[in-house]
């Protein structure tokens, strides 16, 4: 099968959906003439013209709200945030408008649209450019939240997100755009809300999503060398969460480690731990463990980045701990 970059997979999804549906358009900072801050939308202005690939001023609150209004009135915007750190300037329109429009209007005005862009840390970018808001958005009823981990998933999930009738938050990573992976030429869709077992195993379940899946999978490979066969589940969507897949796996492995790149309090991992203790309490042989980033803003110096993030070692330690194999 051919191999393409993560950014190319996203671009293909955008291109295919825009060719198929006149109502879909792309709006955001530097998406058109500059070909995207991270080159996701390379060549799209040329193909679709400035009516459908729209550069905005640095006015997130305004253009996010304009996209919401356009969605209420029959279009299907894809609204790009240069990174989700800047979505905070626009979050009122996402939470107070997009997420509850359908419900507030008694089902009359939906917002079929996608807010997308990179999330999370990307090296030494300092505190304001290194944040994960997956759980913030996932907390809000009315939104769906997708966080893909590889090019194949990114393409199939983005196509599903654009076709979805609800507002979807779609979170990528600066550090994944260059990742390569196999993506078929033929069209495919990956439904939202369905987790994917990326590695089958019986010793322990590791749940993760997005960029940090790489850490989880590398840890699983390391663990396999010591005879520990981890089952690694990629959530792909953190709202809704595919609890069933997690719980079925835990019933088999009896141990669970959740790995995510976000602050720990009220995070996706806290949520999963709650649901698993509620629904699989009798199957657990050890308390659920999680690996998150540290409970602090991320400083600039390299030692902070290293200390802060989930690492292969931290995941292995957590697995050893739930296996009572503390060394």
């Amino acid at each position, binding site marked *: 099968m051919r191999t393409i970059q993560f950014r190319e997979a996203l671009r293909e999804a955008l291109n295919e959906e825009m060719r198929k549906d006149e109502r879909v358009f792309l709006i955001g900072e530097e998406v058109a003439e500059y070909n995207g801050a991270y080159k996701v939308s390379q060549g799209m202005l040329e193909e679709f013209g400035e009516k459908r690939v729209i550069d905005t001023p640095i006015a997130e609150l305004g253009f996010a709200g304009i996209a919401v209004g356009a969605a209420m009135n029959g279009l299907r915007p894809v609204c790009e945030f240069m990174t989700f750190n800047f979505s905070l300037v626009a979050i009122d329109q996402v939470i107070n408008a997009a997420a509850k429009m359908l419900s507030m209007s008694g089902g009359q005005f939906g917002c079929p649209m996608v807010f997308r862009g990179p999330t999370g840390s990307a*090296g*030494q970018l*300092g505190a*304001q450019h290194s944040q994960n808001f997956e759980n913030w958005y996932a907390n809000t009823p009315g939104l769906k939240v997708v966080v893909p981990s590889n090019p194949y998933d990114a393409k199939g999930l983005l196509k599903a997100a654009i076709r979805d009738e609800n507002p979807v938050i779609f979170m990528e990573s600066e550090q994944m755009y260059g990742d390569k992976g196999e993506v078929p030429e033929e069209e495919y869709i990956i439904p939202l809300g369905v987790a994917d077992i990326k590695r089958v195993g019986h010793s322990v379940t590791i749940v993760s999503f997005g960029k940090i899946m790489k850490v989880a999978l590398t840890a699983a490979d390391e663990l396999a060398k010591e005879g520990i066969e981890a089952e690694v589940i990629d959530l792909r969507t953190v709202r809704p969460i595919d609890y069933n897949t997690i719980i079925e796996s835990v019933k088999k492995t009896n141990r669970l480690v959740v790995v995510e790149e976000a602050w720990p309090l009220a995070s996706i991992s806290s949520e999963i731990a709650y649901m698993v203790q509620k629904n699989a309490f009798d199957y657990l042989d050890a308390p659920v463990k999680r690996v998150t980033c*540290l409970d602090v803003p991320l400083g*600039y110096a390299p030692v*902070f980045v290293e200390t802060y993030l989930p690492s292969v070692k931290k995941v292995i330690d957590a697995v050893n701990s739930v296996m009572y194999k503390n060394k």
Partner: protein
Amino acid sequence: MAAKKNTYSKETYIKWYEEMLLMRRFEEKAAQLYGQQKIRGFCHLYIGQEAVVAGTMSALKKEDRIITAYRDHAHALACGISADAVMAELYGKATGCSKGKGGSMHMFSKEHHFFGGHGIVGGQIPLGAGIAFADKYRGDKQVTVCYMGDGAVRQGALHETFNMAMLWKLPVIFVCENNGYAMGTSVERTTNVLDIYKLGLAYDMPSKAVDGMQPQTVHESIAEAADRARNNEGPTFLEIRTYRYRGHSMSDPAKYRTKEEVEEYKSKDPIEIIKAIILKERYSTEAELDAIEANIESTVNKSVEFAENSPWPEASDIYADVYVENDYPYITE
């Protein structure tokens, strides 16, 4: 606006020259070090815009307050933070002016009344008004200069802040450093109102455009605005027109503009202009200017040495200064 020649003293010209040359040489070194990966992350150079900060600082008092965005190295230096502390911050060393927590975009120094470099475009605009609010509240006479880019004026926060700053007559000078571009987007592509200063007029704020390629014109407009602020007459909005020679950040090839455009601005380089005046008026000899240059080079080289030899922060410092208490119960698992 033509500069009024000779309104300023010999000392002022020489100070401008020294200050701007330090900014320039410091950042040229920073660019090299970025290439060597000694400096990481986002790094935005101020090269070309030096006259804006130099002309501002000469018109202010030492205790006046400065706040700006992420393109902040020159502002930090001009506030009096040592080249050592700024360079060490660029490296991420514990001796940096933000203890290695901030990096290029987040220089701070309370001691030097520098309220920081801020990373969210436009985020510093209300903060600048708030700093001025506090001075007015206490009855102090300080003035705050709040810098922003031409891209930042597109944020809604600007309008909310301008309205309140006028309503409450806050002692703040809003300075838009209009360098023509926000990343790859020219001002023309973001608005029908090409004269950015006119945004202030909607709030009846005294507002005007200023030539930012020479410190004289900047000084003049800031001095006037500062007087107004100190006399309880409220804020001013200055659109200071300038140019950045380099890309937006280290990773920007700047293909959205022509070589000719860049060359045109370089031909009216503020450092060269001031140097020419100094020589023409015989304020200094070539030899004296060479000595200044050598001095600056040594300051910059020493700052690199200082940064190189400085300790890294400890891993445990990651928990320092998140809360004021040092026994805050962090979640650790």
